[in-house]
């Protein structure tokens, strides 16, 4: 009971400290958040990219042709079809001057003027005509798309015209029968319509959910895992250092004057270290899941890994603090030992290559390396069998560090 009272007092102390709260929860989430904003937002923008339809005003001056019919009408109808509704917003103008005026006043992006001889030029193989595309010079993408679509149609018309002219020439020289001309043109039309499928003009690729999940898994997830491990070990040391702080402030000596055994006092302190790291790890796992949608893997697997991390971070804190004479030396541990071991343990994570075999065995010479790899294995959907080596490694480190740390403290306070 007394150990629990000591642990509760230490927890109250930890969670009343603004510095500790920022350090335990704020910093790891903030660093991951920065990466999320830097890289995550680009990914999200891609999936939500939308080009507004270009306003196109059409003036159809085509007078038609007895043989070819109303090709201007056909072109207009094609452009007004549903297939292009997402790309163009079509309106009609009575004459070319009013159409240009609409473009000049930026009420339309593009004006398409179909000349009066558009159909006639189709039947006369010797003559040519021009479609006029009058566009707002401040726009680039919209007019470009409209030009591509119209080019597609004019190419089709030109193709038919060339096909008919060529077939007539061959019939005149006896290479084919006149009766075959109709079949040839029909075949060409089928072929050209197939290749001119409006859907193939612009291929809009919208990233699906899968690449987004992959981005979280490959970048943000490992960064959050790294932050979690890094700061869990900091918290382990920081909380274990309260025993040195209490010694300096005289409260530990006072505790020893009460009818409370040394085992109860030190047991309460170790309990506080473990509980503080546990609260931190669980909170970071849950909050990062909510904020960054990080999938930490199967619940039993991540639970096992998280508990192993809590044990190893707590034991490491007790172990490291058992070598310190006072809290002033804590700066060396914070700035030096934990940073170096953290960087070595997670060199693959921090270089953006989590699990890269090129780093070999080196990350595993530190407990942070075992912890990070265990978390990554869980995130990648690993089973209990797959994460068991990391969990057992962490437990072994925890037992070793805990025994050494406790023996050193007990010797010191004997």
């Amino acid at each position, binding site marked *: 009971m*007394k150990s629990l009272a000591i642990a509760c007092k230490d927890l109250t*102390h930890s969670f009343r400290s603004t510095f500790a709260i920022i350090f335990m929860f704020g910093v790891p989430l903030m660093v991951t958040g920065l990466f999320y904003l830097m890289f995550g937002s680009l990914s999200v923008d891609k999936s939500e990219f939308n080009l507004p339809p270009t306003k196109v005003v059409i003036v159809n001056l085509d007078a038609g042709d007895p043989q070819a019919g109303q090709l201007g009408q056909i072109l207009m109808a094609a452009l007004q079809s549903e297939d292009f509704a997402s790309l163009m917003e079509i309106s009609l103008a009575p004459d070319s001057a009013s159409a240009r005026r609409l473009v000049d006043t930026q009420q339309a992006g593009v004006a398409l003027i179909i000349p009066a001889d558009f159909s006639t030029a189709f039947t006369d193989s010797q003559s040519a005509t021009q479609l006029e595309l009058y566009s707002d010079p401040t726009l680039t993408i919209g007019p470009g798309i409209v030009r591509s679509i119209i080019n597609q149609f004019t190419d089709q018309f030109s193709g038919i015209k060339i096909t008919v002219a060529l077939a007539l020439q061959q019939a005149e020289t006896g290479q084919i029968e006149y009766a075959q001309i109709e079949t040839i043109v029909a075949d060409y039309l089928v072929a050209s319509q197939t290749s001119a499928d409006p859907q193939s003009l612009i291929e809009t690729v919208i990233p699906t959910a899968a690449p987004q999940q992959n981005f979280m898994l490959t970048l943000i997830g490992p960064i959050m895992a790294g932050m979690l491990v890094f700061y869990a070990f900091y918290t382990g040391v920081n909380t274990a250092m309260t025993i040195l702080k209490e010694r300096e402030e005289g409260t530990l*000596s*006072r505790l*020893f*004057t*009460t*009818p409370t*055994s040394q085992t109860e006092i030190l047991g309460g302190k170790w309990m506080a270290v473990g509980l503080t790291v546990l609260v931190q790890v669980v909170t970071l796992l849950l909050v990062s899941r909510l904020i960054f949608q990080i999938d930490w893997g199967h619940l039993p697997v991540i639970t096992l890994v998280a508990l192993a991390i809590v044990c190893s971070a707590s034991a490491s804190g007790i172990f490291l603090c058992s070598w310190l004479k006072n809290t002033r030396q804590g700066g060396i541990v914070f700035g030096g030992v934990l940073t170096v071991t953290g960087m070595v343990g997670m060199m693959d994570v921090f270089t953006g290559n989590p699990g890269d075999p090129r780093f070999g065995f080196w990350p595993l010479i530190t407990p942070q390396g075992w912890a990070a790899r265990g978390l990554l294995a869980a995130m990648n959907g690993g089973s209990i069998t797959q994460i068991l080596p990391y969990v057992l490694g962490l437990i072994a480190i925890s037992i070793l560090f805990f025994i050494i740390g406790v023996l050193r403290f007990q010797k010191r306070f004997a």
Partner: protein
Amino acid sequence: MQPALHVHNLHKTFRNGHHLKAVDGVSFDVFPGEIFSLLGPNGAGKTTTISMLSALLSPDLPPDGASEITIGGHSLQHEPRSAKALLGVVPQDIALYEDLSARENLIFWGKMYGLRGAALFQRVDEVLELIGLTVRAKERIGKYSGGMKRRVNIGAALLHRPKVIYMDEPTVGIDPQSRRSILDGIIALKQQGMTVLYTTHYMEEAQELSDRMAIMDQGKLIASGTHAELIQLVGQKARLILTVNVPTDRLLPDWQAVPGVFSVVAAGDLLTLLVDDTNRVLPQLFEVAAVHSARITSIDIQEPDLESVFLHLTGRALRDA
């Protein structure tokens, strides 16, 4: 009568670089309901003694037999839990959790003394009332003045109604009003039947509070008894505190040779003399001063007190030792 606190043959030597004999064969008894003061200058060994009596330091094995500490008949070495349950310790420095409120601190320390449930909360309320902090009980200790912290520091040692309470210089560094309040509180504890072991280097406090006292110097208990018994050690000797207009070392050897002067101690500009008859000695002191072309610029005549006792026993002034 069985002593509430029995201390026998305590020794402690610190061996960090050099041998420092901090406590050298200290023995004394404190009886139930008594205030017993350990009086001595800084470095005399009072705090080391208290640390051993609180089980914070283990006494060295003495060369001439065994050391022994019993509290209420329980050996601190062999029955630490039972002995500590009868003991309350007020450390010299504030030993509280600054980020907890006074009430939270008292609840925590009450639990450490084995109090639980309704009894704990009732006792915490009583102690808060006793130290006059009921109104501000929910404020964090860090916001308190030095005097208020001292009161909570004492309150934390009273929660379990100890039979014996140690107070290690509890009035150091606080304002006169808080000091008065603490001294009154200690007298009230005695009236409730509590046994108090009090350490101080203020002889006025020891004189006012104590039923008996012991004087420590350089790790040894050099005298003990009631105030009257200690004063008798110096007989009727009075203290003369003089200032002169020349360096004190010019007069010191000749004044020591004056009949009726027992000791002369120079400290800065002050010369402190222990004399048996001021009326007879003073004219001779003026004559010696005149021979050295010196003038006595001030004289303070003090009747025998604990300061005189310390001077008599050690040849040094208590305040400057």
